[in-house]
């Protein structure tokens, strides 16, 4: 189980520090696909960086800690301080843009061998890489090519192959399909889902497309303006969301065969530079009252396993099913 204890991550800038993730408490069970959704700038990528342990200037972990629930070879507990030693072996990362993550002037074969193990020869590792790549439905020859010779979907599959080669316990995927079209997106997501089923590891998937989350995830975390606002099992969250923001996110998507008018969410999130009081979603919320503007709602368990930060999570307007 990955446990986030009151994580506050801040960026140092010329204007001062700003908290991009502001007090997130979370328990992520092992062997599930967790989806993180929210608007641009809500802190979802920063949270991923914190979980990956990629904390360096200007980002810093102002307070809180991440507990990964496993120990390293010496038997020490792994936290965000020493997770870096476990990169690729026990935690790995699938970035959004595969073109800028792969070295354009080195063959993919060589980039795979970058993390060769000391106990095996190059030829052995290469043979393993080849058979692994083949299992993921890619032609063996693809590792002989340069990144630009492959299509976007193939490059992303190579990235996934690299990230999963050592079968790590945790895989972080930050918008892995945003740059791809729908047909390729589906194949990439199905690949990730199948990998997770076979390896039984934890995948954390960031996307702002709620459709992607519905298809792939077991659990969902919704973030808004650096705060976690809702956390639940996906089927529950999609049918009976407790936070008005989640409901608006789901309802903002048009569906084929459904001719009802759809609205985007008007307004924009508050600037994190301002002093924020009360519920951060209050200005855009249809249910907001005076209480929401002054008193910050706590992130509490309203139904078993279903957390939300809203004063009116149990109100009538919030209990109807999503249509």
């Amino acid at each position, binding site marked *: 189980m990955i446990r986030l204890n009151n994580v506050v991550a801040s960026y140092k800038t010329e204007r001062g520090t700003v908290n991009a993730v502001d007090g997130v408490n979370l328990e992520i069970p092992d062997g599930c696909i967790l989806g993180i959704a929210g608007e641009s700038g809500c802190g979802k990528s920063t949270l991923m960086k914190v979980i990956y342990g990629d904390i360096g200037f200007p980002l810093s972990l102002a307070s809180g800690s991440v507990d990964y629930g496993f120990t390293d070879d010496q038997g020490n507990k792994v936290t965000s301080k020493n997770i870096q030693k476990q990169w690729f072996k026990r935690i790995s990362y699938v970035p959004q843009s595969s073109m800028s993550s792969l070295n354009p002037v080195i063959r993919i074969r060589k980039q795979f061998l970058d993390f060769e193990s000391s106990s095996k020869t190059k030829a052995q590792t290469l043979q393993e890489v080849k058979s692994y790549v083949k299992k993921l439905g890619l032609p063996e020859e693809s590792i002989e090519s340069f990144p630009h010779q492959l299509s976007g979907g193939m490059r992303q599959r190579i990235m996934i192959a690299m990230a999963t080669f050592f079968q790590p316990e945790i895989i972080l995927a930050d918008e892995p399909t945003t740059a791809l079209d729908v047909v*390729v997106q589906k194949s990439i997501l199905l690949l990730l889902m199948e990998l997770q089923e076979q390896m039984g590891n934890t995948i954390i998937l960031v996307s702002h497309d709620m459709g992607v989350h*519905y298809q792939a995830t077991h659990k969902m975390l919704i973030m808004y303006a650096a705060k976690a606002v809702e956390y639940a099992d996906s089927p529950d969250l999609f049918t009976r969301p407790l936070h008005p923001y989640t409901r608006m996110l789901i309802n903002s998507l048009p569906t084929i065969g459904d001719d009802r008018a759809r609205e985007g969410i*008007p307004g924009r999130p508050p600037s994190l530079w301002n002093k924020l009081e009360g519920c951060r979603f209050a200005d855009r919320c249809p249910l907001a009252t005076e209480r929401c503007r002054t008193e910050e709602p706590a992130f509490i368990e309203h139904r078993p396993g279903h957390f939300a930060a809203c004063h009116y999570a149990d109100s009538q307007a919030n209990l109807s099913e999503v249509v």
Partner: protein
Amino acid sequence: MATILKTENLNKVYRLGSLTRSKHIQALNNVNLNIESDVPVIISVVGESGSGKTTLAKTLLRLVEPSSGKVTVYDQLVAGKGVHPPKTQFLATVQPIFQNPFEAFSRYRTVDSYLYETATRVAGLSKTDAIASMENALTSVGLEYKDVQGKYSNQFSGGELQRVSIARALIPHPSLIVADEPVSMIDASRRMIIINLFLKLKEDFKRSFLYITHDLATAYYISDYIAVMNKGVVVEFGNAKEVMSNPQHSYTRLLLDSIPTTKQKWARTKPIITANLTA
């Protein structure tokens, strides 16, 4: 009845490689579309990457010269071999909106200077009229001139800047606006604001749109007509609701099956991974 958009045997071949070893890519293969209507319409072109939809848009915008064939927009010949419509007249007929508004506007110029130049040079307005038309255009996209004046592109969110670029396109009162993936860079929760704006501009200002996208759900939501492209060929064309509810071509069905909806999970019949990984 006016011919809103008509392409006749439109072909575009790109040549890749050197003089001796070249490869030909047929980006557009005999594209024949004909849309006639008295009321403004929204035409969607959908397809995956490399299907030729952006080449079609660029041909209409005269950014790419077709290898053969011609294009008519609102009874005016705009593209084809030897076709040279007067530039200002052409720009007052067809206007573009591009995918990434941060690339469309330079970081070193204020965004209102783009609007001003479109008003004075393309629409040919005097200085005072130009300001008035900028104000009108910005109001129609839900922004105010004073919020835009003197600002640079990095001071806007993606959605706002895209609305500014729509306002810019509206200034010369074009008959057709070509929007190439206008919402793919915008946050999912705010896409519908832009999409609904297109609908409103169609109703209130009588503008027609050519909406290029790979997002079939939004295409279904706003389009009157839809053209499905694959490898440079229009495989299916017709009334949007009819095509989407009763797709005839297998490629259209493939596209429809790939949409991640929040209503029904994908059927998972054939596994991608062939062998047991952990073994």
